[in-house]
Every structure is written in C-alpha cells, then in structure tokens.
C-alpha cells in the first residue's frame, strides 16, 4: 500500500498501516460516547423509531393485501374475496368465499372491488405522503440537534485545550474534523446502530414471510451467504486502509488551503502564486485519487456480491414460476392470512415471492455495503473523537479556592518550563511583583518574556515550581477565575469580527458604552475611533485589516484596560506606537495602574523607564532586578549594556567599553 503513504502525517493521525480496526466492542464504546449527545433527545428518538416501525407494518399489510386483490381477485379474477378483505373493502358476503354460490366473481364484482381498492390507495397515498414529510422533517431535526451539540462540544473543547496543543495542530485540520467528521457521528447512530437494527428487522421480516410461503426458498438464500461473507472479510482491510488514506489526504488539502489563504499577502508579495497553485493542484489530485481508490474497492466488492445475489433471485424465480404454473397448494396458517393472503401458488403469490426473495437479497447486499461504509465511518469517528479525548493540559482543580479579593503580591518561585524537553525556556526563575508597581520585563528576543507572562493566565502551567498570588498557588484556583482577573494586551493585535465597541468589550457581556469609551481614552484610541465613519459602531474586517497596526495596538490596550482587572499585562504595548502616543498611553496607564499589578514586556527604553522595577531576563532566569537608575549604575551590568546598545547602536556600545 505504498501509494497510500504520505509524507505529511498530521498530529493525532493514526498511521495508515494501523488503521483502527472495527470491532463490536469499539462500536459500543463509541456509541456510549455519543450517548450524552443523544440523551436530551431520547424520547424523540424512541417515538421516532416506533413511528417508523408502525408505518412499516402498515405498509407491508397494505402491500400484500393490495397485491392479492389486484392480481388474483381483479385481474385474473378466478378467486373470491377472503372475509377480512371483504370487510376492509366494505363489501357484503356475496363478494366473499361463502356468498352467492358462484365459484368465480362476476365482471361487475371485479370492477367494484377494483374501485374500492383504488379509493383505499388514494387515501393511503395522501396520508402516506403527508406523514412521510412530517417524519422526514422530524428525523432531520433530531439528527441536526445531535450534530449541533456535538459540533459545539468539539469547538468548545478545542478552545479549552492548552496552547501547546494548538501550536502544533493546524487550524484547517480542526475545521475539517468538526465539519466533516462530526456529521459522521450522526451517521454512526443512524447507520451504525439504527441502520443495522433496521436491516436485521427487515431481513427477519422477509425470512418470516418467505417461510410462511415456502421454506425451501431459504436454502437458496443460505447458499449465497457463505461466499458473500468470505468476500467481505477479504476486502475489509483494503477498504479500511484506503478509507484512512482518503481522510488524511482530504484533511491535508483542507489545512494547506487554509494556510495558503492566511498567508495570501506573503504569496502575493513574493509572486509565489504559481508555486502555490501547483501545490494545490498536487494536493487536490492526491485527494481525488484517494477518494477514487477507496470507492473502487467498495464497488468491486459490491459488484461481486450483487452478481451472486442476482443469480439467487433469478433461480428462485424460476422455481416459483414453475410452482405457480402448476398451481401448487400453499399452507399459510389462517392467523397469518392478513399478512400472506394467498390460497395457492397463483399470480399474486408469485409476485409476492419474487419481491420477498429480492427484498431479502437486497437486505443482504445492503448489509455488505453498510459494512464497507462503516469502515470509512469508523475511521472518521476515531478522528472526531480524537479531539474530544484530548485532555486539556491546564485544568481547574475540583474544589478551587476563591480568588483573593485584594491582590497584594504575585510570585514566581523556582519556575521551570520548556515547550520541548530539550530546550528549557525558563530555568528556576524567581520573581516577585507587588500591588501598585509597574514591572518591566526586559530581555533579548526569545529569552522567555512572553512565556513568563502566559503563566499568570495559566495558558501554560510551570513544569516545576509555582506561580502564586498572595501565596496561593494558581493551580489551586479555577482557570476561569484566574483569567477573569488578569487582562493582557497581546503583542499580536488580534481583532475579532464585530464593531469597534465589540472588540474593546470582547468577552464582557452587556458592557455599557461609557466603560468602553473610558478605556479607549486611556489607550488613546478615542480620537481615531471618533474619526471613523460610524465611530464605535464601525465594523472591522477579518483580523481588523482596515486599521493601521498602531491603531490596532491601541484597541488591544483598551480591550485589556476595560476589563478592570487587578493584574494587567502589556506585551510590547508600544512597539507600533509613535513617540507622542507612546508617552500619552504610558502616562494614562501609570495613573490607572495605581491599585494594580502591571507588567510591561518591552524593548523600548522610553517605555522601560516608566517602570518601577526592571527585571532583566537572560537564559531563562532573572539576571538583574532593580530600578532603571540602580541598574544603570552597575558598571558592567547587562542592562546597562543593553540600554547603551539601544541608544547608540551596538558598534558604538562596543567601542565605548
């Protein structure tokens, strides 16, 4: 199966070679997982199934009686009505077996029977179509509701996963999973549980009817079963492997596509459109080929099975034609006459027998097809549940302590952290910050500044050591509380779809406009917002592209300020601000931050100097700590060297020393 192997194996994808095996136990396990999504709808489901069963029964009776009446009583016209039929058609005894002494019905009687039969058909037609639409809508509603819960659960869950997971799972893959694979959950329930149940029911029903008619026909059916089962077993692993390859190829296509659109700007600026196109074409072909291959396996299997089934249908038909030709007698128990109303092998019985063997073969064929589709479905489900099964790395304790009413002190104690074990980012780091202070975190690119701050939000937890607030380990507080009490303005100025006001008031329900405006003023965003067409109600495009970077940055700051939390983190808040705005924003923040703990991550000296304490980060630990003046007075201090490089340029800084 070398053609099914791809270079890219997405995280969480099982290798193509060990495609998950479908076993009864796994199906039940998976079904159990879907139960929480089904439970709220269980009464709906039960009544839905009962209704379907009932309409099936009504359909069967209407069909056999109608067939007998039409073929034997009207068209051939050599038999009289059974008592049950006479009463169903509202006719008197002269039409029945006992009446009028005639052996065969008269032409007039046949015409009357026909008209009554047609009236019944018309009634059933109208009622049937009406209830069919109602049942259809109801069923769709039920499955949509289940699918909705499942999708939402998947999105919710993936949003709570630790960022460590997100940084190495491609967005497109998640999109594909939620969209394409969650629909398959519905299929599992419909096709994996209810489908087989229905199939089994249909098969038993057909066999019962066949047994009532002529048990010898069963023999022909069983002759077909053996090779069919053997073929199915032989094809199963091939179908499974190719189904997995198909899923992987399509998911790959999706994530590549997504990424290309995200990076559209880079591709344009570099005139890499042709390369992107070629790659897309290649991915697209691979996905199409994979889709074709899995289906080809299924088709060859189904053609072989159909061929055997067809032979069975044709041969049984031959025998039944022969019995009907000889008018062989039938021994249907009287109690079953409402189901199988034939007195001997006649035209109606022949047609009925032909339909039933065809039906039984059809059910068997359906079972084979269902089996091969289940292989694909099962793989999809494994992938869908992969998301649901991931444990969020950062979890709230079962009984979280309440968040302190007044934050006094934040402390990092001997914190170790690494994204990958071989590359420690923080190594036994200690840091303390008290309320009412502004701490600047300074250090070279990649020295772990942002990581240090992420721990305050519990985006990551320390590998070793602890981050505490008033002496309480953050791990003993709930994640929601921690995040609700810490505001951050990110270095990447993400904007969300919605108005300016929505963006500032993001995640705060029903916030009033005054608070938003006040926050915007502190962030000096007020003035440019007022100049926008619709002010605070201006809609922002995807990722806020219509604002300049500096404007977006100020919105980010306003978004952090508006949350009015005791802890505020500003990650490079002024990188894209010009000097005038920088000073104004910092002055405002200083004023606003009096009763809070404020952190600044920055390179800009003009920003750093506003801080009370400067923590100089190097190689994962705090190398120097103190005020600007203190640190500058250290003759060969690292911070001092950093500052001189900033103002003079490195070359001169070196020369000076």
């Amino acid at each position: 199966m070398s053609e099914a192997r791809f270079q890219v194996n997405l995280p969480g994808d099982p290798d193509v070679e060990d495609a998950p095996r479908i076993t009864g136990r796994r199906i039940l396990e998976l079904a159990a997982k879907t139960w929480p999504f089904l439970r709220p709808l269980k009464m709906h489901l039960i009544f839905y199934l009962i209704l379907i069963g009932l309409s099936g029964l009504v359909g069967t009776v209407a069909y056999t009686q109608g067939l007998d009446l039409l073929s034997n009583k009207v068209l051939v016209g050599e038999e009289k009505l059974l008592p049950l039929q006479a009463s169903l058609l509202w006719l008197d005894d002269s039409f029945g077996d006992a009446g009028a002494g005639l052996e065969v019905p008269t032409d007039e009687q046949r015409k009357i029977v026909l008209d009554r039969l047609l009236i019944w058909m018309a009634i059933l037609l109208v009622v049937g179509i009406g209830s069919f639409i109602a049942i259809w809508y109801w069923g769709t509603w039920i499955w949509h509701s289940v699918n909705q819960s499942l999708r939402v659960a998947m999105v919710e869950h993936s949003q709570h996963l630790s960022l460590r997971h997100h940084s190495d799972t491609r967005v497109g893959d998640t999109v594909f999973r939620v969209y394409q694979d969650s629909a398959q959950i519905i299929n599992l329930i419909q096709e994996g549980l209810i489908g087989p149940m229905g199939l089994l029911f249909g098969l038993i029903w057909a066999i019962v009817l066949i047994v009532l008619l002529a048990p010898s026909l069963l023999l022909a059916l069983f002759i077909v079963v053996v090779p069919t089962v053997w073929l199915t077993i032989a094809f199963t692993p091939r179908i499974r492997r190719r189904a997995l390859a198909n899923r992987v190829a399509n998911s790959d296509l999706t994530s590549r596509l997504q990424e290309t659109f995200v990076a559209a700007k880079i591709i344009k600026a570099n005139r890499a459109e042709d390369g992107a196109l070629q790659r897309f074409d290649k991915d697209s072909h691979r996905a199409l080929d994979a889709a074709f291959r899995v289906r080809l396996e299924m088709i060859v299997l189904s053609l072989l099975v159909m061929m055997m089934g067809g032979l069975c249908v044709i041969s049984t038909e031959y025998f039944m034609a022969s019995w009907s030709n000889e008018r062989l007698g039938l021994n249907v128990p009287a109690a079953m006459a409402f189901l199988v109303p034939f007195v001997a092998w006649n035209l109606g019985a022949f047609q009925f027998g032909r339909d039933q063997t065809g039906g039984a073969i059809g059910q068997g064929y359906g079972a084979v097809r269902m089996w091969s589709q289940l292989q694909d479905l099962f793989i999809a489900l494994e992938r869908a549940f992969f998301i649901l099964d991931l444990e969020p790395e950062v979890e709230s304790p079962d009984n979280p302590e309440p968040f302190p009413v007044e934050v006094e002190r934040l402390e990092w104690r001997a914190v170790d952290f690494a994204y990958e074990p071989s590359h420690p980012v923080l190594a036994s780091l200690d840091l303390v910050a008290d309320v009412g202070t502004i701490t600047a975190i300074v250090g070279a690119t990649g020295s772990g500044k942002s990581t240090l701050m992420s721990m305050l939000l519990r985006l990551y937890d320390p590998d070793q050591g602890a981050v505490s607030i008033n002496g309480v380990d953050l791990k003993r507080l709930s994640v929601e509380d921690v995040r609700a009490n810490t505001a951050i303005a990110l270095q990447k100025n993400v904007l969300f779809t919605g108005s300016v006001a929505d963006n500032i008031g993001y995640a705060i329900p029903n916030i009033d406009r005054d608070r938003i405006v006040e926050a915007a003023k502190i962030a000096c965003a007020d003035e440019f917002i007022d100049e926008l067409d619709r002010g605070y109600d201006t809609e922002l495009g995807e990722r806020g592209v219509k604002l300049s970077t500096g404007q977006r940055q100020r919105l980010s700051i306003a978004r952090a300020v508006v949350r009015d939390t005791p802890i505020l983190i500003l990650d490079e808040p002024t990188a894209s601000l010009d000097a005038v705005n920088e000073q104004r924003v910092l002055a405002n923040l200083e004023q606003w931050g009096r009763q809070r703990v404020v952190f600044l991550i920055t390179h800009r000296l003009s920003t750093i100097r506003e801080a009370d304490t400067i923590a100089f980060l190097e190689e994962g630990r705090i190398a120097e700590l103190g005020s600007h003046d203190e640190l500058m007075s250290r003759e060969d201090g690292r911070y001092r060297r950093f500052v001189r490089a900033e103002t003079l340029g490195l070359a001169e800084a070196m020369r000076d020393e």
Partner: protein
Amino acid sequence: MSDGSDPNTPRRREGLLESIFGKGGRAQYDDQVDIDTELSNKETFFLVGRAVGLLKPVKKLFFAKFLLSTGMWVPGLLLPWIGKIIVDHVVGGKALDDVELRYPPFMDPILASLQGLGPMQIMMVLSILYVGLLFFIGTRAGGTGAYLYEGSDAATQAENQISGGGSEAGGLWGLLEYWVNVRLTQRMVNLLRTDLFEGLTRLSLTTVQDQRIGDSMYRVLYDAPMVPDVVYQLTLRPLAILIAALIQIYLIEYTYGDISPELVWLAWSAFPIAIAITFPFSGLIRRTNQTKRAAGSSTTSSMEESLDSITAVQSLGGMEREKERFAERSEESFLRERYAIVVWAIVVALGGIFLSSLLIYWGRGVAHNVIVGLLTPGDFFALIGILVAIFYAAGELGDTWIFVQEPAAALRRVFFFIDQERDEDAHGEEEMGTLSDGVTFENLSYEYPDGSAALKEIDLELPTNSFVAIVGPTGAGKTSLAYMIPALLRPTRGRVLIDGIDVTRVHLDSLRRQVTYVFQEHLLLSESIRDNLGIANPDATESELLDALQTAGCMDFIASMPQGIDTVLGRSGETLSVGQQQRLSIARGLIRNSQILILDEPTAALDPVAENRLVEALTEISKDRLVIVIAHRLSTIRRADRIVFMDQGRVLEVGSHDALMRDNESQYRRYAMLQGVDSPAER
C-alpha cells in the same frame, strides 16, 4: 462551563412558515466582498450555460459517459415484455400462439426462440437471458455507486458529489461507467477548483484582505464540487430521459394504440403536468438553498476565526463567547438546511400526488380492459411498468430546472471569484532591468474604498544605492506609501515610477521580482524553515540560504533546533517567539536579492543586539540597491541616508538625521526628542 447554556439542549424552536417566509431578509452572513447574492432566473440561466461550457476540456470523457449511459435503456426496453411473457405464458400458462398483441420489433428474435416451447422451457430460456443481462449490465441487481455515508452538511455531500459516481447499470457495464463517470467529474472539479484557487490568490491585496478565509475555503472545497452535477443535470440527464421516454411512448402507441388510444395521450400529458407543478417553485428553492449555503460558510468562518486567534481568545477569557457565537451560527445553518429540505419535500409531494392520481385513473382504465378480456394480466403489469417509467421521466424532467437551482447558488459563488479582477489585469508587459535611478512618486494620492484619504499629493524621489527610512506617527500612511512600489496598492491619482517607467506598465512578475516587501505581520507557514524561505526564492542555493539567515540573525536560534533549517514549524510558525518569526520573515526578504527591498517595522520585536546587526547588514547591502525601512525606533532611523517624515498622509520633511535635527523647527526633531532618550546628536 457555566450551567446556563447546556450545549446538549437544542435551543431554538421556531415556527416553520414564519421562518421560511418571514425571515428571508434577516440572513446576515460574513461575505464582505461578494455581497449581492440574489439570483434571478435569467442570471441562473446564464450561469448554467457557462457551466456547460466547462465540458470543453473533457469532451471525450463526456462523450464516453453519454454512450455508456445508454446502457440503462436495454433493461428499460426489455423488462416489461419479458415480465409480461412470464405472467401470461409461464404463470398464466397460456400458449404463446395466443398472442393477439403486436410485440415491439426488438422482441422478435426472443419470441422466435420461444416458439413451440412449453411454459417451463420458456422460463428456462428467459432465465438464461436474465443471467446474461445480469452479468453484462447488472439487471435485477441494481446500479453501481460508491457513496460514503454523508451527513446533511456540505462537506460530506461535496465528497460524494465528486467521487460517488453512479451508474444505473450494474455488472461490467456499471463498473466501466462508474470509472468514466468519476474520472470525468473529478477532472472537471479539479480544473474548476484550481481555477478558483488561482482567482482567489491573485485577487488584489485590498480585496484579499476583505475576503474571509473560511468563506474562500468553503467555495473551493464545497461549492466547486457542485458544478459538474449541474452540467449533467442539464445535458445528459434530460437527453437520456427524453430519449427513453419517447421510446416508451412509441412502444405504447405501437402495441396498444389500437386497443385504447387514451392510454397514449394520458402518457403524454404527464410531461406538461410535471413541469407546471415544479417550475413555480424554482425561485423559492433557490433562495432557501442560497441562504443555506451562506449560513454554512459563516459557520466555518466563525470556527476558523476563533481557532486562528486562539491565544487571544484564551487569554481574554472569550471561550464562552466564541462557543456561543459558533453555536448560534451552526444552529442557524442547520435550520436553513431543514427549510431547504421542507420546501423540496413539498414540491416532491405535490408532483407525487398529481402523477399518482393520473396513474390511478389510468390503471383503472387498463384494469377494466383486462376484466372484459381485451388485455391480459401480463399486459397490465407491462403497461404499468412502462407508464411508471414515463411518469418518472416526466417528473425528472420537471425537476431539472429545480435541481439546477441549488447548485446555481454554488455556481455563482464559484464564478464570482474566477471573474474578479486580478492583479495582472492592471499591468503591462514591460520587463524591469537593473535599477539605475530609483523610485519617484508623482503627485500621488490614495483613498480607501470608503473614500477616506490615506495619502495626499505626494511628490517624492528615492534614489537607488541608498538607505531610506520612512518615519511618522501611527496612521501617517507609511505602509500605504510603501505598498505603492510593488503595486500591492494602486494610487487613486498620480503615478509611481521606477527608473522613469510607470509601474503599471511593468509586468507584475518582473516588478515583484525586483521589489521585495517584508511585512509587519510575520506570516510563516507550517513547513520547514527551508521551505518558508523557498517561497520567496525557490532557486536559492544552500549558501545563499545560510547567508540570508545569518544576516537576519536567525542562525543562533536555528543552531539549537534539532533539524536545523529543516525543522518544521508549528502552525503559522507559532512555536517560535515573535522576534524569531520576525527574523525569519526578514531572511525571507533578503534571500530574494532584489533591487528594491522594503521592510515594514523590521526591528520592532528585535532586541538591540539583533537590531544593530540587522541595520548594519541593511546599510551594507544598500550600497548597490534601494533599501526602504519603515521604523519607529531612533536607533534604526538615525542610520538612514535619508529620512522621509510623514504625517496625516503627507510627506512633511526629507533629509538625513543630522540635517533634520539641526533645524529647530523640524517636526522630525520634535518626534525624535519625544522618543525619550536624549537625542544622541546633541550629546
């Protein structure tokens, strides 16, 4: 999560009619570029006409498919008559000589071979015929198709649309037809979605920025696959249906025309009735389907956006809000799907009721003929079989226009972006040579599409072999000005000249080869570092690659990576720190080795050591090209040969750092002083 919103409880139950008819205007979706989505019958007509044009590149396969689809006529023609022989002459036991009716001519060889045989001998011959038909075209076993399980969502349906294939024949014929069918469909889809993809990547930058990523994906992945079906619906299907139905009507006329002429005109009447019932619904069906698809694409968008900004969402505690938003849109999208189903079901039901009434009336007439002995029971079933086939054909023909409605919405969404103006369209064919003079802006103004002015009457010369810094407060128009050079934006008035040639006269390939733009956002792909640089210059040698990385200061962190420059980055490069991403972006700019290099805030996230190294390198390479840097940091700016100071869309001052600092009235001086540190020039 909070207890108030249990995700398992379906939240909205609304009146059906209210929703179908009352809320039509309420649908608000995320399309920002493609806004006007109403389709008239006329537009639909043109769209589908255009879709049929897509057959051109695949006409051979299409012809093969047409020939193969004739296979299904064989059972359609033979089965009613074989059935009649079995009912009358095998089960009914009548002798074959009693035939009063004319069988159609193609039955002659079969009838001839049955002459003089007893009932069970007839059955044996017919059974052998059945087996032959079974083997070659799968008669009595069913059609060929390979549909995977699909939900009622666009994604799984699109998959089946492309590769489900399908043939009404089985056996060897069915296998062959499936093969041709799927390859034909796949080829069409691939051609189309590659075209669409190309259209989407070549949109002008302003359009790209307004277009939602989720929406683009939906178009490529789920809308494009709907197209081949439209083509078949309009070409193969009606043709095949019509031919088959006409043959059936001819058979009725030939065989039963004398006995009961009303049989024939009743059969004909099925066609106008079917069309009269279905046509009036086409508009409603199209609208419900359009909103359905739009709602689906808005669901994708909302999920894509929240996952893409996951850091922000988590750190601001917006998970609940994002979940709610997704749930709401997803719910809406399911609701829309159900409306589409209901409308469709109503049309099917109406058609079903009318045609069934016709069938009941007709069957009564035939049965009377049987009762009085004009026809046999076998005739009854043969006739019903033929009539059902005709009615089915009529119904299908009536539905054709409706079937086209749903994909028409998809078609429009696909063609919209194929037709959008591409960057190339505004450009000439000239090639750009080595840069000799430099870049000139001539009376250049730029307004955003909403009319607000970004740049006002700019006249500026940037000579080659120099290092230029564009400086100014946020929102001054620095980035817009720089975008003008590689024509990422085009001026509303005025011109941009490179060596005296208007950039719009230069071929876009040539222009962008000579102008490199390093963006402020660091957009990395989740590929290896090598591949990330390869986008910019696929032909770069190993040593050029390492040089660029070295100059941009990437080597120190790359050296510590397990696979060096072959290390695969996480999603959008997020396993790197922002500063590292920035340095990689810069390396990607350097490796192109082009005549004009523009860097937008290259040093914002760099520490001083890295910054200085970079500025040194830029100064060095500016000796034989034009380097333009947009920057705030004084430490970067003061090294430039020429500083362009901008504010509010105008260029206010141009000159070197020292020259500008000497002028006491200079706005740049004020700006530099505000940077906080004592001005080095004055020390």
